[in-house]
């Protein structure tokens, strides 16, 4: 799997926090917990975290103000905001305040994990590369071409963006909502399996007729593209 991340969970509900910390540990990461905004601020400034997970409603210093202070101090650590509030407005507010991603409660842990991992890689080496490679699958971001085993695979523009996003996060779980957000730029939760259909279309183009399957379904979480042999 990926390298272990060091996380800070700022969440006032102890039970929820304990669950997240435990689950993160099980996933191979290290997670600290702060129970209020001021503690969260102190910890975030002291240690070098990969990602901060911040609840919006916190005692002493609310989540958005906490993020604002951290950003004012020049801290660039990616922040994921957790909120029990609604979707549209609040996400915009959260992102404006300096958050990098936004997740509404209640959420599936797999969703949180996938998003946190994606955040930790943001700005990593994959973002700068012009050609993504997984086994014999190659995606050229400049020429917009995809080949597998040297064989050209024609893709629709949207399919290309879908594959591009999956490959940028190769080896990582990518959830359906992350795909809808990043490929289609919509943030709602479709009640039907639209995303699955798109992925299976893409799969039929890149995996069909090849021995090795690259695009995998991760049960209860989403999708992952990886070189199965690894």
């Amino acid at each position: 799997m990926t390298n272990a991340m060091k996380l800070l969970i700022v969440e006032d509900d102890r039970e929820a926090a304990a669950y997240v910390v435990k689950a993160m540990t099980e996933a191979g990461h290290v997670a600290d917990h702060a129970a209020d905004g001021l503690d969260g601020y102190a910890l975030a400034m002291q240690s070098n975290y990969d990602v901060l997970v911040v609840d919006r409603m916190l005692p002493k210093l609310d989540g958005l103000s906490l993020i604002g202070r951290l950003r004012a101090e020049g801290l660039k650590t990616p922040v994921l905001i957790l909120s029990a509030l609604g979707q549209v407005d609040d996400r915009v507010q959260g992102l404006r305040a300096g958050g990098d991603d936004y997740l509404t409660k209640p959420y599936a842990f797999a969703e949180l994990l996938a998003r946190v991992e994606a955040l930790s890689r943001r700005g990593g080496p994959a973002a700068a590369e012009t050609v993504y490679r997984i086994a014999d699958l190659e995606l050229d971001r400049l020429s917009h071409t995809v080949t597998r085993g040297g064989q050209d695979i024609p893709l629709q523009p949207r399919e290309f963006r879908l594959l591009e996003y999956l490959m940028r996060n190769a080896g990582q779980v990518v959830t359906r909502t992350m795909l809808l957000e990043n490929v289609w730029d919509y943030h709602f939760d479709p009640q039907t399996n639209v995303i699955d259909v798109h992925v299976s279309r893409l799969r039929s183009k890149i995996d069909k007729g090849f021995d090795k399957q690259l695009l995998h379904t991760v049960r209860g979480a989403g999708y992952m593209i990886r070189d199965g042999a690894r």
Partner: protein
Amino acid sequence: MTALGKLLRTTAFRLALAYLLVFATLSTVVLAYVAWHANALIAGQLNATVDAEITGLAEQYRQGGIRKLVAVVDERSNRSSQGSLYLLTTFQGDVLAGNLQAIPGASLAEAGEREIPYQRVGENEVAPYPAVVRVFVLPGGYRLLVGRDTEERERLSAVIANAVQWSLGLVVVLGLAGGVFVARRVLKRLDAMTETSRTIMAGDLSGRLAVTGSDDEFDRLAQATNAMLDRINELMAGLKEVSDNIAHDLKTPLTRLRNRAEAALRTAHGDDEWQAAMEQIIAESEGMIRIFDALLLIARAESGGARGQIGEVDAAEVARGVAELYEPLAEERGASLTVDAPGSIRVLGNRELIGQVVANLVENALNYGASEGRPGEVTVSASASETDARIVVADRGPGIPAQDRPRAMERFVRLDTSRSRPGSGLGLALAAAVARLHGGTLTLEDNAPGLRAVLSLPRAAHAVLAPAETAKLPAPAAAE
């Protein structure tokens, strides 16, 4: 508070008192003015008459001396009984001619004008009358007095004083009576209204204020209040329906969730069965979260809150994007999805919300737009009129009967009464709420056969967003 005290404290009575004061003052001023002028007029007439007499007598005196004057005064004294007074005396006060009884010598001592009481010749028993007289001293010590009875003037003054008293009295009495009458009338109607309001406040929302049919301000107030009560009643009914529905729609999945957990506890053996049971439980809870999210979003949209990123949105682009998103799904289901949304139509709005609404409509069309043996045919189109952008999602399925269409846009209303098909019954309600938030409408039309859902949004230049402060009670989201 006594009944009288209550009456006296009414606004109507106080107003009546204020008017009473104003009118009393006004009538006093008017009458005083009239009295003063009448007095002045009469005094002027008296003077004029006396002047004329004097001019005449002076002429006679100049022609015939004292002898002639005596004759003329004598003649006039006998002739005029009309209030002219004459007296001619010697230096010693002996009467030479005239119709006055002797008067105090002092009154005749000097020339000039004065007011004196007098008695006519042969009127000893009667009280003296008032008069205005002028006295002249003639050569030889003769005294001539010419005067005029002023009783007329006095009588007029009395009449006017009388009028003042009576009219003031009348004004006060009528004003008070009117004030009491109006106040009692107002009080009676207000008491009736208060009484009705109390019973309504006590919980009987069916009570209504009486409307007398006179169309006065009280009737209009009663009508407006009654209309408000009707609206509240409607809202309460809607609220009750919604909460019943929430109870039903959340309790059903909660029950299933609990049943599954119990069944798993009881019967599940082996990891596979546990896993399957847990996955079902999670799926159920996700369904409930969705319902919550949709309800929250509707509430936010209706209160005008959910307008996060308002900006220019290309409605045609949204239609194309959503159609492209759902096209593979339609194909997988054997349905066709065609899109006809050329160019670009700018509206002012929230792209997320509009996109979600169009997605809801397309999902509806895919879910309900197919009849048995006939695959769905869904079209998504966007067009523009002068003022509006219209995004139309149409299918060729069974459609919705005209009488059910407004209801279909209410929360939790699922025309499929068995509730066996997927869906929360919130999609169209959300669409309608979002349309209203953008100052637009959602209408359901007959596609003969099938359903056409038309989302009309004002174009960018015409957009008027619903004011944020129209925080509505959770209304039954019927098209109004």
